[in-house]
């Protein structure tokens, strides 16, 4: 029972990281009808920015919000400069453009910061605390808390503010929204900024355990895809729930299924993607895709 609880806590910690990146994927999916394959690399790049800020003596809790603001601005810039010109292009073009962006961010990070894995500071100690007989690390609890706060803030923004309302309107019905005076193009840019900032949170939270290097997010993004697909690719709530489920499931599989161990955890995520697509293609919270003919 004790070990079970410990596995749940560390599963939720990974889950928080997956949920943040999955939410980033969903925000952009809603804004342009396509996942952003560069989401993980953008998060990695933002994490390098946080690394540089901290290395130059900025305290962690100042560098963290500063990085989010920079990531937000960067996301908007990417949408305005790279995505907007090809907004109305066929889907395949957009796929290639975001894949190109991924390569670009990966290469730029390698060029600027090198490929040597670097240890990234964590503000939480690796000490453990006893909760109900189970031992949880402050590191895991801290990741859960930070992800929780960020995800809740996004929820409040989307569901309980006028700007969030206009963002949702612009994503779902651009034409009708324009007729209500919503600046649709800017709302989509805002979606990119927000996604980039949430993605940065997942990168910064993942870095202490994974070590920072340009390929750091390439497995995390697979888990995030699994989470987003499981939740229903259009649903922000689904992304969060999906992230937590994937985190806990993968952790359990690693701990309790001897043949999975640490090596096949990624395969579990891929199995989740395939299973969801076969059994329930709209995910847990997705609406069935209805096409009028």
């Amino acid at each position, binding site marked *: 029972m004790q070990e079970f609880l410990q596995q749940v806590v560390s599963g939720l910690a990974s889950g928080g990281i997956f949920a943040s990146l999955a939410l980033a994927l969903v925000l952009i999916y809603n804004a342009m009808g396509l996942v952003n394959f560069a989401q993980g690399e953008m998060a990695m790049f933002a994490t390098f920015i946080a690394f540089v800020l901290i290395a130059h003596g900025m305290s962690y809790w100042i560098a963290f919000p500063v990085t989010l603001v920079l990531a937000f601005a960067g996301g908007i810039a990417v949408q305005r400069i790279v995505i907007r010109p090809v907004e109305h292009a066929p889907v395949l073009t957009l796929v290639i453009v975001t894949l190109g962006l991924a390569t670009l961010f990966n290469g730029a990070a390698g060029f600027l910061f090198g490929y040597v894995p670097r240890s990234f500071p964590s503000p939480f100690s690796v000490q453990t605390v006893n909760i109900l007989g189970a031992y949880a690390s402050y590191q895991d609890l801290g990741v859960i808390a930070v992800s929780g706060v960020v995800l809740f803030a996004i929820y409040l923004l989307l569901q309980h503010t*006028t700007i969030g*309302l206009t963002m*949702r*309107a612009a994503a779902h019905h651009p034409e009708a929204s*324009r*007729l209500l005076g*919503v*600046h649709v193009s800017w709302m989509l840019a805002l979606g990119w900024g927000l996604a980039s900032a949430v993605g940065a949170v997942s990168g910064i939270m993942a870095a202490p355990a994974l070590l920072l290097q340009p390929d750091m997010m390439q497995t995390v993004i697979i888990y995030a895809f699994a989470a987003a697909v499981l939740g229903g690719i259009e649903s922000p709530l689904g992304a969060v729930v999906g992230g937590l489920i994937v985190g806990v499931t993968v952790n359990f599989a690693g701990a309790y299924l001897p043949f999975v161990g640490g090596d096949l955890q990624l395969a579990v995520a891929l199995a989740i993607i395939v299973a969801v697509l076969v059994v329930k293609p709209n995910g847990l919270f997705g609406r069935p895709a209805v096409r009028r003919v």
Partner: protein
Amino acid sequence: MPALLEVEDVRAGYGGTSVLHGVSLSVPEGAIVSLLGANGAGKTTTLRAITAGVRWTGDIRFQGRSLRRMSTEDVVRLGVAHVPEGRGILTELTVDENLRLGAHLRHDADVRKDYDEVFAYFPVLRERRGLSASTLSGGEQQMLAIARALLMRPRLMLLDEPSLGLAPMVVRSIFEIIRTINQARGVAVLLVEQNATLALEMSSAAFVLEVGRVAVHGDSSELKGNESVRRSYLGY
């Protein structure tokens, strides 16, 4: 004094196909004007040109100001509420969220009062506030679309076939409310309608489009007596 809306020799189309071949019409301040014509005559395209939903040449002026090169958002923000074909309801959102989108640009103190007024016209919307807009019937969605347009506090409402697909009784009550709004608020209305009898009854003036041009125009009462209009659009 110039009219509230002036459309002058407007040509527009989709891709290579031109739909409007020089449409001119005007809507005076506070008036209800109807725009009639057969399917494909260019009624919807005329409305879409006004709110920049389609590229056009010629000139369109609102309150004396040219709308040339303005985006849809900019035209709407000047005080033009366009209830499009199909009503433009955001079905992913709730009834209340749809209404809030109507009022989202306003910061004046009268918003609350306007909500009350809207709910007085359409009590059913108050009952359904928290529900998804997709659960509303066609008539209720039309009411929501008009209510939402009203919350924008427009000077001019463009209504594209508000009667489409609705039961005659529902159409009656919606048209009565449109008339009430027009009289109480002084909101001008440009009404596109298939149901010419009803439209001519409501409006003070009317324009009849035929293949992208204004074929006949004049006072609604006159047009009702016009032989060719009667035969083509009134059906008796």
